[in-house]
């Protein structure tokens, strides 16, 4: 074993030196001499005894501090006292709150978006009508947008395909009611430009929706020619850009599906 350091000797004096220190001191005169000097010096440093406290000292201390101590609340279930669990519950509650807030905001936003365009009310039948009807508020911009799509599809429609023509006819029937409402609105508002354009559109929608026997190739070609000659598609696009916010209330059968 190597010679003991001063730190080792100090530790050994207090009974916590390295193992084998005692045996080394017994063999090594140099270390033993150093340790003896250290022990002599430390032995001289006597521990001064603190003033004696009598047996009632603890009682006096308790009497002096007891009034300042608040009573702990009755301990709840220990699980609830667990700090990690409480922290976890806090996070979970915060996440749930966030999700609920996002869901609610989404609902409000969605409702706001819908109400800005369409308001749907159920109108009770006056005297047992054959089918229930719905009253819808149609925005002119939307109406013209749908009309424009219909015209584009009509322009490129294939007369031989029933699958192509049938949806166009249904859509034309749906648009007719709204178009009538807008025409009346345009007449009352003294907007001849809009009224004329809607009249052109009305004529085409009537033919498309109500032609007896449906559309054959000849009838379709005629409609396409009228549409082109009236520059109807162009007119619809111009009107849509000029009158996007005009609204009318339209009554139509529920079975009509979307407006």
């Amino acid at each position: 074993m190597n010679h003991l350091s001063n730190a080792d000797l100090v530790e050994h004096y207090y009974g916590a030196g390295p193992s084998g220190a005692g045996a080394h001191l017994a063999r090594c005169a140099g270390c033993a001499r150093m340790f003896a000097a250290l022990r002599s010096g430390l032995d001289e440093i006597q521990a001064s005894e603190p003033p004696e406290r009598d047996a009632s000292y603890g009682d006096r201390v308790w009497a002096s501090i007891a009034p300042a101590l608040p009573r702990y609340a009755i301990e709840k279930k220990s699980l609830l006292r667990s700090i990690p669990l409480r922290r976890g519950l806090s996070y979970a509650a915060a996440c749930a709150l966030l999700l609920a807030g996002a869901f609610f905001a989404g609902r409000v936003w969605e409702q706001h978006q819908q109400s800005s365009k369409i308001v749907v009310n159920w109108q009770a039948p006056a005297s047992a009508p054959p089918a229930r009807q719905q009253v819808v508020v149609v925005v002119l911009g939307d109406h013209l947008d749908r009309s424009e799509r219909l015209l584009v599809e009509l322009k490129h429609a294939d007369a031989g395909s029933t699958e192509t023509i049938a949806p166009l006819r249904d859509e034309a029937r749906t648009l007719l009611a709204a178009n009538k409402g807008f025409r009346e609105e345009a007449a009352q508002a003294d907007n001849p430009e809009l009224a004329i354009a809607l009249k052109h559109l009305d004529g085409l929608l009537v033919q498309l929706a109500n032609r007896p026997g449906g559309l054959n190739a000849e009838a379709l070609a005629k409609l396409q020619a009228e549409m082109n000659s009236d520059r109807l598609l162009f007119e619809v696009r111009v009107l849509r850009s000029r009158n996007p916010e005009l609204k009318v209330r339209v009554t139509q059968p529920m079975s009509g599906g979307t407006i």
Partner: protein
Amino acid sequence: MLCMGKNDHATIRAILSGDKEAYGALVRQHSPSLFRVAWRITGNEADAEEVVQEALLRGYRKLETFESRANFGTWIYRIAVRCALDRVSCRTRDGESRVGEDRIGEDRGQDEAQVADEAAGPERLLLSGEIAALQDLALQELTTTERTAFLLRHMEGRSGEEIAQALGILPNAAKQAVFRAVQKLRRSLAALRVKA
């Protein structure tokens, strides 16, 4: 050496359940040892008594953070050491200086602070032959950490681990603090003896 009574944990559970009076048992059990270490560090009886009360108050308020696997005696002892060091630190900041405290043969019941006497140098103390005064003087030359570590080791018989916990330092740092204190004390006392 403080022993953790097996009933201490049960007592603490009772306190946390609302039985405030149960703390009285812990106070009575641990007050003497707390006073002892507080007196060692502050060197003053009145300060030591205040430290005991403050430590027990702090301990009560922190009782919820006490870990059941810990030893209440060691835990409250550590709080008392911190309180005592705080008090010494405040005293130092206030410019109050103590030399030899009340262990230099004067009235130990005297509460008032002893202001450093410029004339109370080594020569006078050696001439009076009071070895205890030399020791106290040498102790005052140590840093707070060294002095506290040495007092806890040499006079309180605390282990390095306990000293480290009480001072909030690493065990090796506590060991080094004790070693430095011993070296400084030996040098100081040797020099004073030569002068004598």
